[in-house]
């Protein structure tokens, strides 16, 4: 599990013993809690947000244990670890998957794959003029999307296959550090059913975790490259339709945002929505992270902001408790807001 291990080693390095290993688990899982979201920003780990959603707690704990037994990491507090020299050199020899961009892409990576695999199945059957087959994709939204694409796309049906083929090959060939087999053998076509994830891993003799990371890495590569060169990959560009503009805020925070814009205070919003104040505060932290023109000045005066930032930089810590000890005038909420807004610069 070299790939997953190097990601974990990298995360541990970044966290520098300030968070437990479970913050990494939540990060890889893409947990939508403000703590995880904030950590991803604070410790510059956004690329790994949500890149391994199906990872279970048990497998994660097994991996940590294995890493500890191999002496790649050592214990530095309860549920906290740091890389050993061996671990560091392992990380040096096993570079991180280059294209992972969980923060920007995790919310639609699955949908992108569902579209791509279904699109290939339909195209292939078109090419072979077969109309009776079982769709491997059950998601209704993907079916609707495909229908609209087939209406819009301006390519003769007979040439579809060749065009999709050359666009895909061209797109893959532009990267030298990915193995497209991880994805291609999973595609289903005319009378040829794609492999499952575990079958592909086995065929390529990869550990299952590494397979998964490699697969997501390729998807993120495709998403980025197709998006950047949409004028060149004119057919593949349809895969991206309506995917990118999604708001990063969670549904609940959007409601809070509405009320905030109408001039309500955090307490009033909590009252109004029958939510705990701490929940509303979480939402505000999310705004500080994600909404560019959200000002925290009404909640923390600028002098205090500077102080908090200085302490955090000076003692090289993002631990709320440590900062609070040195700036007792600030509340936890205020510290979180400041770190969220300016912490990763």
């Amino acid at each position, binding site marked *: 599990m070299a790939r997953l291990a190097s990601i974990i080693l990298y995360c541990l390095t970044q966290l520098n013993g300030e968070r437990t290993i479970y913050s990494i688990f939540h990060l890889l899982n893409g947990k939508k809690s403000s703590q995880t979201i904030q950590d991803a920003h604070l410790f510059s780990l956004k690329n790994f947000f949500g890149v391994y959603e199906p990872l279970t707690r048990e497998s994660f704990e097994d991996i940590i244990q294995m890493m500890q037994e191999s002496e790649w990491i050592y214990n530095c507090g309860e549920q906290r670890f740091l890389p050993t020299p061996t671990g560091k050199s392992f990380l040096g020899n096993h570079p991180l998957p280059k294209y992972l961009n969980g923060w920007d892409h995790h919310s639609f990576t699955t949908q992108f794959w569902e579209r791509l695999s279904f699109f*290939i199945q339909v*195209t*292939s059957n078109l*090419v*072979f003029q077969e109309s*009776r087959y*079982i*769709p*491997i994709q*059950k998601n209704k939204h993907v079916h609707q999307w495909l229908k609209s694409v087939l209406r819009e796309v301006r390519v003769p049906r*007979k040439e579809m*296959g*060749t065009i*999709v*083929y050359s666009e*895909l*090959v061209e797109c893959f060939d532009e990267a030298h550090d990915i*193995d*497209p*087999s991880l994805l*291609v*053998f999973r*595609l*289903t*076509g*005319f*009378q*040829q*059913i*794609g*492999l*499952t*994830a*575990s*079958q592909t891993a086995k*065929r390529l003799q990869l550990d299952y975790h590494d397979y998964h990371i490699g697969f997501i890495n390729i998807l993120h590569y495709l998403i980025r490259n197709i998006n950047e060169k949409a004028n060149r990959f004119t057919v593949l560009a349809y895969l991206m339709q309506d995917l990118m503009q999604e708001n990063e805020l969670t549904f609940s925070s959007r409601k809070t945002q509405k009320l905030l814009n109408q001039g309500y205070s955090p307490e009033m919003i909590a009252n109004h929505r029958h939510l705990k104040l701490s929940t509303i505060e979480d939402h505000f932290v999310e705004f500080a992270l994600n909404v560019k023109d959200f000002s925290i000045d009404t909640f923390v005066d600028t002098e205090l902001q500077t102080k908090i930032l200085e302490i955090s930089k000076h003692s090289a810590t993002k631990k709320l408790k440590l900062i609070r000890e040195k700036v007792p005038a600030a509340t936890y909420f205020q510290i979180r807001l400041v770190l969220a807004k300016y912490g990763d610069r």
Partner: protein
Amino acid sequence: MELESILEKHFGYYSFKTGQKEVISSILAGNHTLAMLPTGTGKSLCYQLPGLILKGKILIISPLLSLMQDQVEQFKRFGEKRVIALNSFLSSEERNNVLTSLSSYKFIFISQEMLRIPFIMGRLQGLDISLFVVDEAHCISQWGYDFRPDYSKLGDIRQKLGDPLTLALTATATSRVREDIIASLRIEKINKIESTIDRPNIAMYVENLSDYHDKKDRVIELVTSLQKPGIIYFTSKKAAEQIASLLVDKGVCRAMPYHGGVDQNSRILIQQQFIYGQLDVICATSAFGMGVNKENIRFIIHYHMPMQMESYLQEIGRAGRDGLPSIAVLLHSPGDEQLPIHLAEGELPSEQQIDWLFNRLSDEQRSMDVGGQLPNQFKEFGGFSEVQWRIIEDFVYSPHRHSSRLEELQAAFKKFINERFIVKKKNIFQMKKWVEATSCRRELILRYFDEASSGKVPFCCDQCGLQLNDYQTGQLAPMPKANEELWKDYLAKILINRELSK
């Protein structure tokens, strides 16, 4: 138009399979019909085809959600788009959309829990229903192996819909169950079309092993020598996983496990790989098989004993749909009945669970929601499985219990659970008796379903002197070499039609 030409024109088949034409003619002549046709003989066609002739809607009640989805897809493959499935898979928004445009559909599949909702019943009452179909009708009877309390209310529902022309379909029902179906649907005069449940091209073979642990080696031997493709049925997921990897690692064949723990996407792929011959063997729990139509399955092996004769028949019925010789092997070792008994127990809520739940239920909670939804956190905290929870909901919300008080309900429910367990145990021992029998197995099955023997079958069963080597491959086919195809070639293969570009 003649029925045969409709069959050819719309479905692309040249002749009817056993029983189909009789059932269709009976329906078209306006008779209520109970049809018992063997598994996989095309029962669906018995309402698909009349649907093209009858003026009004075809309403189909189906107990299994996953099956419903398959059937809708089957329709679409024949180019029939006016088909919809109304079940709890739909979001409330989708459901509302469907309900407002209900009259534009011709074939309406519905699950029994949807029929509980008065609003939906109201919509159905406004439709012109030409045919009321009850699929898997044995679920109506408490003597059926898959009793669904909700199904027993279909009689009421038929009345509310104005006594529409009715077709009840089942593959496996004893005569007692058949009587129950008719009584429960409250139909006085019904045309019974019962073709034999016997599948003469499937030979049966029970093999006794002195120790459960010998099964592993034996199953490898069998799979190595028997003609493939085949299915091995298991009762436990773990065993299915284990044997599948053994078969692959030993280079015996291309095998995959298939059970409830496999994610939805992989399940679809595995099923399709099997159908397209990319896999030789599926190691499955009973989750596999429903709606899988593969013609050339040559063997079914039972690693564990099924819970009842009916399931056994359904499962071996997946073999030999092309009519060619096929074999069903059941591996048996002493004490094998313990696993199904254990399972039967697990399917029902325990005494403690029932008490726990009723202590938390209040009368008002029960009457609050007529849609039939108990608070979901109870399910989680009480540790109820899907199956257990369904049984509880079905029972607590059944309309004729609505008036009863909580203590009465609790007592009645316990009694009901006890009875279910007794029925299940009885079924298991029936199965065991068959496994241990020393006379013709086919005869015994026919007798169980109250059918007269149809005369001797040449390749019958172990008791009639069947030899396994008749089903072995002439030469041992080597496992296909590890595939070394490159990704570009694979991509070209599926996307570029060389024929076309010539």
